[in-house]
């Protein structure tokens, strides 16, 4: 369905974009899913503004992010560094705690952050902790107490911390991060919106809906982390394309998660696969709940994996444009996550009972490979012009 990818030139100053920015949707649902850098693959022509696909709407968010980065850069030069936090001890302690939480809940991700510069590492931890706390509101031990009011209050806290008035110490770490890096509030708001939606939904009619969900839980994290990772100064690629690549990486990661955890999710009564594609492949919810690997299932999974790989390929185009210091960890995470798809294939597409697992040795071997690929810098002008939007 998303086989056709068309790069389109979106009209600037699209007033409708602003109204569509309050898009809902996704959820960091699965517990140990940290954020990653991602990019959206664009499709569909602009000629039909009424029936917007999720991809278009998400793309507009991406455009706005890129535009904001440019604005913020100017503002930042004017405004002096005023972060309401003058208590450095508390701040350092907060950051350390963020690191501990990250190490506790997402070990591989934590190891990946150790490949970054210390400043970026702390910033990524702060973002991770906020995302994880948001996720735990709907998916943690107190999920039974969650109400829309709680999410509203949580969003209010987010607004406050972006204005430099954090509520507790973890908010303080994030507030400091957003004052140092040009991170925008919109992806955070989208993630909360995603939590709201995810509480209602357990089935996805088509890939469009699933894409929106993936944007909400994972794409937003990519948009959050691009300003932290930083774009290489010598990069000729447009900001939008890098954000797009980040979005694609997030979508790819989330799709990989989904494909790996089909059995686990089914046991909880949730199916994160597009219903229409299931029907097309001759499968039903019952087949998934039954958990038997048939030839139909194999061919269905093959297509799904192919699509996930396409998103990874999209993402790879953007990783080269990142700051030199950030390329290694991002490549490492990309390669590691891509290997999960290989593991699913190696399990004979049995994601019902067997968990696709990348062994430690394979993980370790990926590190030097990632390092090698990270040495490749931004593309030259000619190539950039060819691939630019």
């Amino acid at each position, binding site marked *: 369905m998303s086989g056709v990818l068309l790069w389109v030139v979106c009209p600037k100053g699209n007033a409708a974009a602003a109204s569509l920015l309050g898009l809902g949707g996704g959820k960091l649902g699965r517990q140990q899913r940290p954020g990653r850098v991602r990019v959206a693959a664009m499709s569909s022509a602009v000629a039909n503004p009424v029936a917007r696909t999720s991809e278009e709407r998400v793309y507009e968010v991406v455009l706005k992010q890129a535009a904001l980065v440019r604005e913020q850069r100017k503002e930042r030069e004017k405004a002096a560094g005023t972060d309401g936090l003058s208590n450095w001890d508390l701040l350092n302690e907060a950051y350390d705690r963020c690191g501990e939480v990250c190490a506790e809940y997402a070990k591989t991700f934590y190891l990946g952050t150790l490949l970054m510069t210390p400043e970026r590492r702390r910033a990524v931890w702060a973002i991770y902790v906020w995302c994880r*706390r948001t996720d735990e509101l709907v998916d943690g*031990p107190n999920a*039974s107490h969650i109400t*829309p009011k*709680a999410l509203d*209050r949580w969003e*209010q806290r987010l607004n406050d911390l972006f204005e430099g008035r954090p509520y507790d*110490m973890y908010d303080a770490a994030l507030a400091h991060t957003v004052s140092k890096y040009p991170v925008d509030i919109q992806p955070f708001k989208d993630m909360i919106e995603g939590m709201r939606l995810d509480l209602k939904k357990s089935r996805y009619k088509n890939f469009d809906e699933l894409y929106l969900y993936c944007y909400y839980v994972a794409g937003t994290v990519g948009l959050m982390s691009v300003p932290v990772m930083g774009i290489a100064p010598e990069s000729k690629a447009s900001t939008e394309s890098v954000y797009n690549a980040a979005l694609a990486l997030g979508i790819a990661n989330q799709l990989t998660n989904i494909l790996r955890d089909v059995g686990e999710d089914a046991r909880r009564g949730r199916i994160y696969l597009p219903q229409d594609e299931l029907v097309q492949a001759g499968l039903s919810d019952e087949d998934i709940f039954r958990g038997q690997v048939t030839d139909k299932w194999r061919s269905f999974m093959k297509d799904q994996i192919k699509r996930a790989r396409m998103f990874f390929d999209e993402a790879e185009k953007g990783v080269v444009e990142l700051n030199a210091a950030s390329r290694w960890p991002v490549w490492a995470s990309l390669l590691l996550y891509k290997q999960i798809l290989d593991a699913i294939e190696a399990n004979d597409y049995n994601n019902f009972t067997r968990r696709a697992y990348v062994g430690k040795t394979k993980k370790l071997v990926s590190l030097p490979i990632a390092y090698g690929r990270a040495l490749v810098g931004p593309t030259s002008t000619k190539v950039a012009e060819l691939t630019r939007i």
Partner: protein
Amino acid sequence: MFCSGRILAVSYPTKPLSCTCRSPHSFSGAGFRHGRPKPPPAYFSAKWRLMASEPDSSSSSFAASVDSDSPDINNASSSAAAAAAGFCIIEGPETVQDFVEMELQEIQDNIRSRRNKIFLHMEEVRRLRIQQRIKSAEMGILKEEQENELPNFPSFIPFLPPLSSANLRIYYATCFSLIAGIIIFGGLLAPTLELKLGLGGTSYEDFIRSMHLPMQLSQVDPIVASFSGGAVGVISSLMVVEINNVKQQEHKRCKYCLGTGYLACARCANTGTLVLIEPVSTLNGGDKPLSPPKTERCANCSGSGKVMCPTCLCTGMAMASEHDPRIDPFD
């Protein structure tokens, strides 16, 4: 049960009995499982569909009705029900103000009556759980908890298989035979065979000499030597046990607040007070010393310096269920 039912009927006159019966459940919610979102309990889902379908104004009016109810001290019970229904896991600076209009004596009375109710509720939960267990056993429903009749818990000593009552026998047997074997070896075998366990089959004295250690070491009294060796062994194994115990307890505590249940308030940086900065003109009165800055109570945390940890809801435990032994009488 009948008694408590009557108490409920008396204390919640304004709400229908069926509604109030459900409200405690929304809190004890059977089993706080750390996992995927499960459908919220019936009470909440009904409420929530109501909220979701109506526009924002209704949800805010609901919130308003909660706030207006709570200072209604005459009908403390209805406010309790309303406050329970309006409970929001994310607190804001205004939540502590819910009871601001009460007098001190009233506050104390309220606290006492609520603690009483908590005690009665927990007692009911205990009895209900007993009934639940009995009934499901009668109906032959195999619950996962029944497998925990003989719980399997990890051994304190690293690398050893998990313990259970059946296993324990094997542990005892292994332990005793090891001790017996070592005693026999040390007491009988070694002297009989005149084992020289030093490097290259040397005796103790030769070993000391070859290591160039002071010769008085070779004259150590055997009793002293064995006592020291034994004591060192015991002390280090006790340490290992303690460390494992600490690790286990750490597992259970909330990682965000490290078991304290609270996080440092960011507005006042954990002090509880905000310093009011007033610009002081130094044009006139330049020889007067600056007065110390005025402080005011931090509104965020109401002066306590810490705020509720939203992950564990101030319980400090990773799973924020009530850790009261009455919750599971079969444990």
